[in-house]
């Protein structure tokens, strides 16, 4: 189980209808690649965030699949069109089965 995992999202609180807004997200995570060895020479098992999604009012806006070469604390910056007031739902899926979530409301 990865420790110290904390999702962070920066999104505007208000937008005009149909506006394209920039969202920044970062999740603090070690992103252990599964290629490294500890001081005894044993392989450290892979532990990464393997998927990240962003939905707006239930409609998918972004779906990212991640593999072993993504560096620590994955950061995503992307644009979303906001047609109406609603919630942006962010979800991160960990290798160990944990799911981290965050919600940001945007008012039109």
């Amino acid at each position, binding site marked *: 189980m990865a420790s110290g995992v904390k999702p962070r999202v*920066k999104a505007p609180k208000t937008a005009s209808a149909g506006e394209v807004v920039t969202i920044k997200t970062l999740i603090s995570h070690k992103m252990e690649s599964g290629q490294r060895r500890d001081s005894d020479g044993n392989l450290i098992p892979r532990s990464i965030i393997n998927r990240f999604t962003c939905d707006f009012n239930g409609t998918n806006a972004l779906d990212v699949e991640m593999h072993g070469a993504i560096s620590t*604390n994955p*950061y995503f910056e992307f644009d979303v069109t906001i047609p109406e007031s609603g919630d942006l739902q962010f979800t991160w899926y960990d290798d160990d089965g944990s799911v981290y979530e965050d919600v940001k409301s945007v008012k039109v």
Partner: protein
Amino acid sequence: MNFKMLSVVSAVALAMPTLGAAGPDDDTLIINEEIEVVTKAEPAEHLDGALYEVISGWHFRNDDTQAIEMDDFDNPGMLGVENAMATWNTAEGSAGKSCADCHGDAAESMKGVKATYPKYDEKAGTVMTVQMKVNECRTERMGAEAWKYDAGPAIDMEAMIGSQSRGMQMNVAIDGPAKPFWEKGKEIYYTRYGQLELSCASCHEQNYGNMIRADHLSQGQTNGFPTYRLKNAKLNGAHSRFKGCIRDTRAETFSPGSDEFIALELYVASRGNGLGVETPSVRN
């Protein structure tokens, strides 16, 4: 066009992009669209003409790297600052006290600390760095174990304390009781170490703005330390950087937290007097 002429043309073409390409740029550093940071300053008097201008390492990085430092959300160094902020408020040790119990709000009590450290300490009778002061508190007042020099929690704490001084100009004292320590640091700065026989000055005074293999040489200023390096994805202390530099000269290095590095930190900080604090900065 004969062969000779062709090679002259290509030699010029090859040389052109490298000429001055590694030098500092003219951008302005404003963090969070709010904190304006002085990144170019008049050299301190003691430099005696060794530098015509003191320039923050920020100017030697490309626009993308510069941008990461300009927004706290983008700056991964702020994750360390956040960690330390949690530690600040957590009681530890036999006295059951946290940093906040004595020092209150770090934004108030720690403001300006980074700008004047390392500093001569009356009680200890020596020059002390921020990390040493933190450990003094931990062992004497909190009854907690001292952190290892430049270890994770110590670096996070130093970055958090440093970040409270962002935008303030470096102004370490080099006179009075600090003078002998400063002299010692200066001597180390100009001493050639290792099989390559390089001193700090060989690169950071005589060759800043030139390429060192594939990277740009800066003046080696410490106004942004602890600094988040993209190459190892963590905060790095000034002493660890000194160690890396001396190691690269193929010498036996001093240890982080040693008297030599404390003196050197004071001297290097004094070379950057006038530069704004950027902690935690972002570099390659």
